């Protein structure tokens, strides 16, 4: 009886159907999250400023850049090119969002996330609500790791081509 070619964890991580669903879901999440920020950069700048971590001079720059990165990354994921690179980028961005939210909450700042809505009446974030960001981070990391190159067979490792 032949041994399975990959360990079970790798087969789950590399499951093609799961990766396609993750790719499309993450793409839609980031495209939807970007739109309001793109058309209201001033309101988004206000929210970024509320995090109290960036120098004032960089707030507007980030308010202009970040939503477009989210939109372009979402579109690239939808198309299905550069998936591994975009998954890494979105993992890093989501990690930064979590860190920024956490530091604001740890300092007792009554923060609006600005993640999916710029509505100032939106409920302020709390620790319990961070599960959304962690779920997104886990999905992005899964998409990234699932697109790593296949391990090289032993003989190629020992005698690499070229």
């Amino acid at each position, binding site marked *: 009886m032949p041994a399975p070619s990959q360990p079970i964890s790798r087969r789950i991580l590399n499951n093609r159907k799961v990766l396609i669903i993750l790719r499309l879901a993450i793409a839609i999440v980031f495209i939807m999250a970007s739109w309001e920020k793109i*058309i209201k950069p001033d309101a988004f700048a206000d929210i970024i*400023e*509320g995090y109290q971590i960036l120098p004032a001079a960089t707030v507007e720059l980030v308010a202009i850049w970040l939503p477009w990165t989210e939109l372009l990354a979402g579109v690239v994921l939808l198309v299905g090119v550069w998936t591994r690179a975009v998954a890494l980028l979105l993992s890093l961005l989501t990690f930064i969002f979590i860190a920024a939210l956490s530091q604001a909450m740890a300092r007792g700042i009554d923060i609006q996330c600005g993640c999916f809505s710029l509505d100032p009446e939106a409920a302020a974030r709390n620790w319990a609500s961070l599960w959304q960001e962690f779920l997104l981070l886990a999905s992005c990391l899964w998409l990234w790791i699932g697109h*790593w190159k296949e391990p090289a*067979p*032993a003989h190629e490792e020992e005698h690499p081509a070229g």
Partner: protein
Amino acid sequence: MKQPAHNQNNSHDPLSVLSPWWKRADIGTDLSRIFMLILLSLGTGFIFNTIYIWPKQYPSSMNQPHTLLTQISMEHAYELVQRKQAVIVDTRDPEAYAHSHIAGAINLPLSQFDNYYPDFASQVEKSQTIILYCSAGCGIKEKVATRLQQHGYQDINAIAAGPKEWAAAGYPVAKEENPHITEGERQ
């Protein structure tokens, strides 16, 4: 049968000889792609804002430098407002104003300057002292100051604080619906 020493650990599974994870993740290639995406989004953002956002904010002063505002402290601003020697003006969006604003502030949002200006002009004389604010660190109030100067207002000051900092210093803030939002705008 004894395996060769260099192949002992992996002889049962030829695929288990893993390349280092950073090689399989191809970090170098991906970082260059990420860098390209960041540059592309930054460029697209600037082009989009130049064409669609900034002209709406200050259409007749696109190429003019921001007005140099006289910065005053919160304490001084509070004294002037209390003595009715100055009018305090919130330059943020109506939604943000309705959520929380400095007590007594008039809303004159940069994004809807032309709609709000007639009402503002009917309440504030051109000789009056004006104190602008948005949020701490934001650049909206400088653009509003430029527009006000074009309309003839001269004594324009600013505080580098928003309602949060104002409230934290113990001064009053208000949370109410913006009286300047018309029924049409609400719908």
